[in-house]
C-alpha cells in the first residue's frame, strides 16, 4: 500500500503584514500577514527547499521520481523538475514531471505518485509543490495569496498509509490567469464562492464519502483547501465539520493561500501534529476536487534537522513596508543606479559546471583528503593531479569567517553581504548571504546553504547557492 514516508515544507523568511498593503492602497485590509518569497526565490527554489526538508536522512539515490507541481513555473518551456532534481542531487534515472496550470496540480501530482508506487513503476516518488502567485496591486488576491512550498515522499511503506482517493472534475470559469498575464483573476465573488468552490467541494466530498463508504465524522483532521478564510469557514459549515477540533488550521493569517502547494501544506501541518491511529482527509480544489484519505499508523518520526511547517512558521522577518514587496516582486520599474553592467551568463559554462552549480559539488582529494570548493583538478594542499572525488556540500553548515556589506554591488535588496563561510568538513564557501538582517550579521554566526536565483542574465534563470543564517 502506498504511504507517505516523509514530509517537508518551506515557508519563505519574509512576511508582509496585511495592514501594510492596506496602508499602501487605502481602505481595509485582511487579518494577519502573508509569506513573501525573497527577491531571489521562485517556485523552483522554494520547491528545492521543501524537498531538502523532506529528504533529511534519506538516501537520495533511492528516489526514482520527482513530481513538481506549480501554477507559477518560472519557465513556460523547460522543465522545472529537472532543475529541482539537479539541486537535490537525485539520480539521472529519476522520472521528472511538471504538473502545472491548475490549483489542483499539487494533489494531481500526489495522485500520480500514489498510482506510480501502487503500480510498482516507482519505489519512492518525491512530490514537491510550490507557488509564488501575484494578485494585481490593490486587489483582494494581493492580500490573500502567499508564497510557500511543500514536499511529500511517497513510498511503499511508511507511517501514513494512503487509504483512498477520489477525483471530481468540473469545468468552471471562476478563477484564471492567461498565458500573457501576471496576475490571477476571478469572476464576481458570489458566483465564484457558491457555484465554484463551495458547490464543488460539497458535491465532491459527499460523492467520495458515499462511494468509499466513509463518514466525514470519522476523520480526526481534515486538510481543506479554500480560496480564503471566509470560504474555508463556509465550507466547514456546509460539510458540518467541527472547526475547533476536526479541521487543520489553514494558515490564512500566517502564510496565505499558496496555490498548488496549499492543500498539501495544510496536510503536512496536520501530519506534523497527528498521532497514531488518526484518520486524515485531504480536499483540494481547482476546476474540481481531489480527495484523499490517510491512516496514521504511527506517529511519524521527525528528524531534528527537519523544520517542517512548524519550524518555518516560527522563523520569520517582516518586510519593512509594501514598497519593498513591490521591489521584490518587480511590480514597478525601479532605477537601480548607474552600476557596472549586471551579470553575464553562458549556457555553456552552466552546462560544463552543472554539478558544481546545481549540486554544489566540491572536490575531495583522494591523496591528502582535503576538500575544496569549487572543485579543483590540482590539489592546493598536496598538488595531486586529477585525484579527487566529488562531494556535495548542500547540507553542510558553516560559520561566517569574514564578511562585508557591499552597497556598491547591484542588488534588489542591498547591501550584498559578501560572505566567506568556513563549512563543516574543513572547507570554505564564498558567496552571498540571503534571508538576513544586515544589522544582525556578525562574525562566527552559524549559516547553512540555500538554492537561489542569482539573476536573469541572457534571458534565462541563473540558479546557484547562497548562504543564510540558520532558520
Amino acid at each position, binding site marked *: 500500500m502506498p504511504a507517505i514516508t516523509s514530509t517537508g515544507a518551506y515557508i519563505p523568511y519574509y512576511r508582509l503584514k496585511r495592514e501594510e498593503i492596506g496602508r499602501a492602497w487605502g481602505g481595509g485590509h485582511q487579518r494577519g500577514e502573508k509569506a513573501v518569497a525573497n527577491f531571489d526565490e521562485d517556485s523552483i527554489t522554494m520547491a528545492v527547499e521543501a524537498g531538502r526538508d523532506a529528504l533529511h536522512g534519506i538516501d537520495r539515490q533511492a528516489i526514482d521520481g520527482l513530481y513538481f507541481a506549480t501554477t507559477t513555473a518560472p519557465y513556460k518551456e523547460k522543465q522545472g523538475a529537472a532543475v529541482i532534481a539537479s539541486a537535490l542531487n537525485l539520480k539521472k534515472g529519476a522520472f521528472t514531471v511538471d504538473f502545472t496550470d491548475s490549483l489542483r496540480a499539487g494533489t494531481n501530482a500526489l495522485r500520480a505518485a500514489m498510482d506510480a508506487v501502487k503500480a510498482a513503476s516507482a519505489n519512492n516518488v518525491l512530490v514537491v509543490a510550490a507557488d509564488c502567485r501575484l494578485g494585481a496591486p490593490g486587489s483582494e488576491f494581493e492580500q490573500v495569496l502567499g508564497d510557500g512550498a511543500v514536499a511529500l515522499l511517497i513510498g511503499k511503506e511508511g507511517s501514513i498509509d494512503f487509504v483512498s482517493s477520489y477525483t471530481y472534475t468540473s469545468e468552471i470559469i471562476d478563477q484564471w490567469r492567461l498565458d500573457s498575464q501576471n496576475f490571477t483573476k476571478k469572476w464576481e465573488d458570489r458566483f465564484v464562492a457558491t457555484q465554484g468552490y463551495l458547490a464543488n467541494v460539497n458535491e465532491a466530498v459527499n460523492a467520495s464519502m458515499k462511494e468509499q463508504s466513509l463518514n466525514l465524522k470519522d476523520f480526526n483532521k481534515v486538510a481543506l483547501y479554500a480560496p480564503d478564510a471566509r470560504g474555508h469557514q463556509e465550507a466547514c459549515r456546509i460539510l458540518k465539520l467541527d472547526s475547533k477540533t476536526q479541521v487543520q488550521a489553514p494558515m490564512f493569517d500566517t502564510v496565505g493561500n499558496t496555490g498548488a502547494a496549499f492543500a498539501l501544506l495544510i496536510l503536512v501541518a496536520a501530519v506534523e501534529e497527528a498521532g497514531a491511529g488518526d484518520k486524515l482527509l485531504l480536499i483540494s480544489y481547482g476546476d474540481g476536487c481531489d480527495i484523499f484519505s490517510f491512516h496514521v499508523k504511527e506517529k511519524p518520526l521527525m528528524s531534528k534537522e527537519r523544520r517542517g511547517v512548524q519550524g518555518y512558521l516560527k522563523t520569520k522577518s517582516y518586510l519593512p513596508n509594501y514598497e519593498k514587496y513591490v521591489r521584490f516582486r518587480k511590480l514597478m520599474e525601479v532605477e537601480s543606479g*548607474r*552600476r*557596472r*553592467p549586471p*551579470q*553575464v*551568463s*553562458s549556457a555553456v*559554462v*552552466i552546462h560544463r*559546471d552543472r554539478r*558544481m*552549480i546545481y549540486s554544489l559539488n566540491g572536490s575531495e582529494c583522494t591523496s591528502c583528503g582535503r576538500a*575544496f*570548493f*569549487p572543485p*579543483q583538478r590540482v590539489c*592546493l594542499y598536496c598538488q595531486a593531479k586529477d585525484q579527487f572525488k566529488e562531494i556535495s556540500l548542500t547540507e553542510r553548515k558553516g560559520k561566517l*569567517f*569574514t*564578511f*562585508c*556589506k*557591499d*552597497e*556598491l*554591488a*547591484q*542588488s534588489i535588496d542591498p*547591501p*550584498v553581504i*559578501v560572505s*566567506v563561510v*568556513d563549512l563543516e568538513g*574543513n*572547507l*570554505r564557501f*564564498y*558567496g*552571498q548571504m540571503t534571508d538576513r538582517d544586515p544589522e544582525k550579521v556578525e*562574525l562566527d554566526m552559524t549559516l547553512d546553504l540555500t538554492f537561489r536565483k*542569482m*539573476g536573469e*542574465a541572457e534571458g534565462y534563470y*541563473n*540558479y*546557484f547557492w547562497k548562504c543564510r543564517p540558520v532558520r
Partner: protein
Amino acid sequence: MKVDAIRDKVAIIGMGCTKFGENWNMSVEDMLIDAVYEAYADAGVEAKDIEAAWIGSVASAFTGETLARPLKLKAKPITRIENACGTGMDALRNACFGVACGFYDMVLVAGVEKLKDSGYAGLPEFFVHPVYGQGFTAPGRWALIATRYFQTYGIKPEEGKRALAKIAVKNHHNGTFSPKAHFQREITLEQALNAPIIAWPLGLFDCCPTTDGAAAAIICPADIAKSFKDDYVLVKGFGVAIGPCLGKEDIDYKYDHLPETEAAGRQAYEAAGIKNPRKEISVAQVHDCFTIAELTEYEALGFCELGRAVQEVEAGTFTLEGELPANTDGGLKAFGHPLGATGLRMCNELYLQLRGKAGPRQVKNPRFGLAMAQGGHPGMLMPIVTILGCRD
C-alpha cells in the same frame, strides 16, 4: 634564480605622466601621446630612438597596437602586458629584463587606463562566472580583510575605521602638493568617518576614485644612462608573487594579512640588498586602492610588525614628516587609479623623489624608494614590488 641579477643594470632616464582624473576630453591615444612625449622630452630622446616598447593596460588596450598607432612607432617589438592593478609596473619589469640582458639599449614603457567612458562608477567586471563569485565589487572584496583584521587584533570597528580615515586624510593632504593628482584638496577626519558606507566597514573616503590617466618611462642600460641624464635613477630590484589566488576558497587563508605581498616584498628586498626595510627605505608608494590595503601593506612589506599598523598610523610614521613617508604624491586615494598607469605613476613619484624634484612633498635625502602595485584583492593578490635607488 638570481634575484639580484637585475640590480643596477637598468636606469630610468625619463618619465612622463598625464594629469590624472576624469579626463572627459582625452582618449586613450591622447593620454598615451601626452605621457610618452613628456618622457621623450625628459630623456632627450625621440620616437626613432626607441628600439622596443611595453604597454600596460588592464581593459583599455588591445595588443601592442595600442601604443604603435598613436605614437607612429614603425615595425617595433611592442608587447602588451596585463597583470591586474600591477600591470604598469609589470610592463616596466618586463622591459627591464629586455634591457638588462643586453638585447635593447632604448626602451619605452607606458601604462594607460580609460575608465570614465564606461558610464558608471567603479571598475568593470573582468572575469565573470555566470553564478560563482557573482555580484561583488572591489571595495566589497577588500572590505573582507578589514572585518577580519579588526577581529584578529581585537580592534573595535570604530578604532579601525579611525586609523583608516587617518590614512585617507594623509593621502588627501599629500595630494594637495601634486598638481597632476585627481584630488587636490584636504579632507577632515570627521568627513572621512562620516562618509556614506560603500562596503561596510569601508566608507566613501576609504576608496580610491575611478580615474583616467597614463604614465610612461624611458629606460636604458645603466652604463650608458649618464649620456642622457646626469641624475638618472637605478632599478634595484623587483618582486612579484602571484598565486594560487584561492584565498577566498582556502580555509587556511586567514584574511588578516597579505602573504603574497609579504613574499613579493621579500623578493624585492633580496634583489635590492635591503636588510631592514623600515630603516633603509626612504620613501614608499603603496597600493591604497582602499585604505585597508595601505594599512595591511605596511605590515606585509615589513614596515612594522603584524598587528602594529594602527598604532603606527596613530603615531604618524607614514606622513610626509614621518619616519617612512608613504604615498607622498597622494597615492591611489588622491592621485587616482587608472589601473594600467598606476604602477608607472608610483615609479614616477619615486623618480622625482630620488632626484629631489618632488617640490613641496619632497622627502629628505632619499636613497631607496619602494613602489608596490597590488593586483587583485585579498585571497587573490598579484602584488608587484619595485625598488629604485639614487645613482652612486
